[in-house]
């Protein structure tokens, strides 16, 4: 099974699970159709389409051969996973550390992850970028544009 088949199966499972949940929704006396009416149409449609995708994938004749050059390109998935991880940590840290500290750590950490600093100059550059981003965004948004940014429960900062 190819990526299409896997994606189709995942959407089919999600659609059927949600469809089953809509059966528990009670109709409202105020409107002729209940809150489950429209979701059932949507989920029925996505279930049918994903089933179609799975069937089409199973029926597709596979040809074995050399992959095109573009497909052979090695992609850096560990770096993507780590980048998502660092962002998730940032999202978790924001309400505890506050915008300025969390942003300083996130920008510095992400920059170092994507382009590991070489020598003291590299580290200084990463620190300056992190500090400038945290300070400038805070100044522009909170001070100038009056857009509130998260405050830290631990730091009150």
């Amino acid at each position, binding site marked *: 099974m190819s*990526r*299409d088949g*896997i*994606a189709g199966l995942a*959407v089919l499972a*999600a*659609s059927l699970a*949600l469809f089953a*949940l*809509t059966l528990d*929704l009670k109709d*409202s006396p105020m*409107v*002729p*159709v209940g*809150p489950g*009416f*429209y*979701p059932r149409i*949507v*989920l029925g*449609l*996505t279930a049918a*389409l*994903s089933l*179609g*995708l799975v069937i*089409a994938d199973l029926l597709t004749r596979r040809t074995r051969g050399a992959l095109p050059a573009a497909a052979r*390109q090695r*992609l*850096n*998935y560990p*770096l*993507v996973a780590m*980048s*998502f991880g660092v*962002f*998730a940590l*940032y*999202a978790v840290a*924001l309400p505890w550390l506050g915008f300025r500290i969390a*942003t300083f750590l*996130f*920008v510095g950490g*992400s*920059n170092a992850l*994507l*382009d*590991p600093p070489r020598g003291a100059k590299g580290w200084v550059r990463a620190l300056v*970028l992190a500090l400038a*981003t945290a300070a400038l*965004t805070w100044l*522009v*948004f909170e001070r*100038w*544009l*009056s*857009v509130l*940014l*998260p405050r830290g429960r631990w730091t009150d900062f």
Partner: protein
Amino acid sequence: MFELLGTALVNVAQLKYLAPLFFGTLAGVVGGALPGVTITMTIIVVLPFTFGLDPLQGLAAMTGVYVGGSAGGLVTAVLLGIPGTPSAIATTFDGHPMAKKGEPGRAIWLGVWASFFGGLVGGAFLIFSTGPLAKFALEFGPWEFFALFVFALSMVAGLVESSLAKGLLSGGLGLIVTVLGNDPVMGQQRLTLGIPMLEGGIDFLPVLIGVFAFAQIMSEVERMGGAARLVDAVDRSLSLAVSHFKVIREILSRPLLLLWSSFIGLVIGVLPAIGGSAANMIAYDQAKKLSRHPQNFGSGIPEGIIASESSNNANVGGSLVTIMAFGIPGDAVTAVMLGALTIHGIQSGPLFILQNPQLAYGIFAAYLLAHPLMVLIIGLAARYMLRVVTVPKAALFPVVLVLCVIGAYALNNTMQNVYVLLAFGLLGYAMVKFGFPLAPFILGVILGDQIEINLIRAIMTDSDPWLFLTRPISGALIALSAASLAFAIWQHYRHRAKIARPAEADF
């Protein structure tokens, strides 16, 4: 109309509005010029800056981004052969060869002035057609709105050449997002999955920001290794000096090409979610087909640049018409603008121009004034922009993500939207990896509630389902939806047959 427009032009020409318009246009030009940074990403970055501004200031900034971004892509397309945005791909075909032949200034300015004139054609269409189209849309009942939104969704899903099923499924996934949380008619809780965060439903802006920003950034990150830059090295000794009079005469001496390409851009802009990337390619293709010397295309001729650039800026006018008259975003950029309107409590759609004439005409004025600003900015900064494109990705991406977080958090000052941003960032990246198009998904998220509300309203008014087909406008729109899907299926098989033909010839 002209009185309102005149007042709006005077109003927007004041520093209070001109400054955000200028900085928006500058951001658009720079963002458009950066390969790997689309206009959508630029407008997402600019969005949080508009929260503290009044609605017209914010929308002026966003209009500036849109106009500037549509033209900015030509700078790197011409000078480096790398289109800054997908809407400048066709500009590369003749712009870069012309630059390589020793005429970089001519190539750049042909593009800039063609963008300017194409944009003005788009502006005329925007100003003269939005009001009548909105009046026409006021005749719509729930049946017509339901059919219109279904048509928009079917068109976008059908445009995916590789797989119609994936296009439709992507739109369906977007609709699923809108059924989680609460019923928009009665406000009853449904499908919350026991997650408190879902009880109030999901705002579409964090979804849009997450899907587009992460899909794009992570697709770049996966190709990175070390100090990757948007562009590795540029020649900074280029001279872009040119006689503007000559260049303008070169463009205006081809009025049919300019008008036809602008018309193509407009039509594609009006159709939901197709955008400038298709407009420039189709206009280029049309210019080539209609030319007496099609063999010269690709060798560095002005016609190729004029067709591509006039169409992508006229496209902006078309997209703005769709959002202002019908409340349907023409593309991801106008989807963000729709979000900005919602933040300020303004409802887009047929009543928008009637209820907010000053704001509507303010947008028209901002659109018109953004064009001379774009010419000025590119004139002053084209050479320096080549330095900006050497910015390291490792420095750019974290900063963009911080701005995305601010944009999501500041919508209602809760961390919930930041978590939604992350969750949909993961989903957006997964969709890209599995070959699902993002445009139908986003349109599904934006239109889902309205589709449901209008469907239920129609049923509450009259339970006869045949009304969707027997009412003339609704029936025509449903027929168009079916026709667009049939056309997509035909196109899909033709595309597959085209791919199969050379393979068969090998045997």
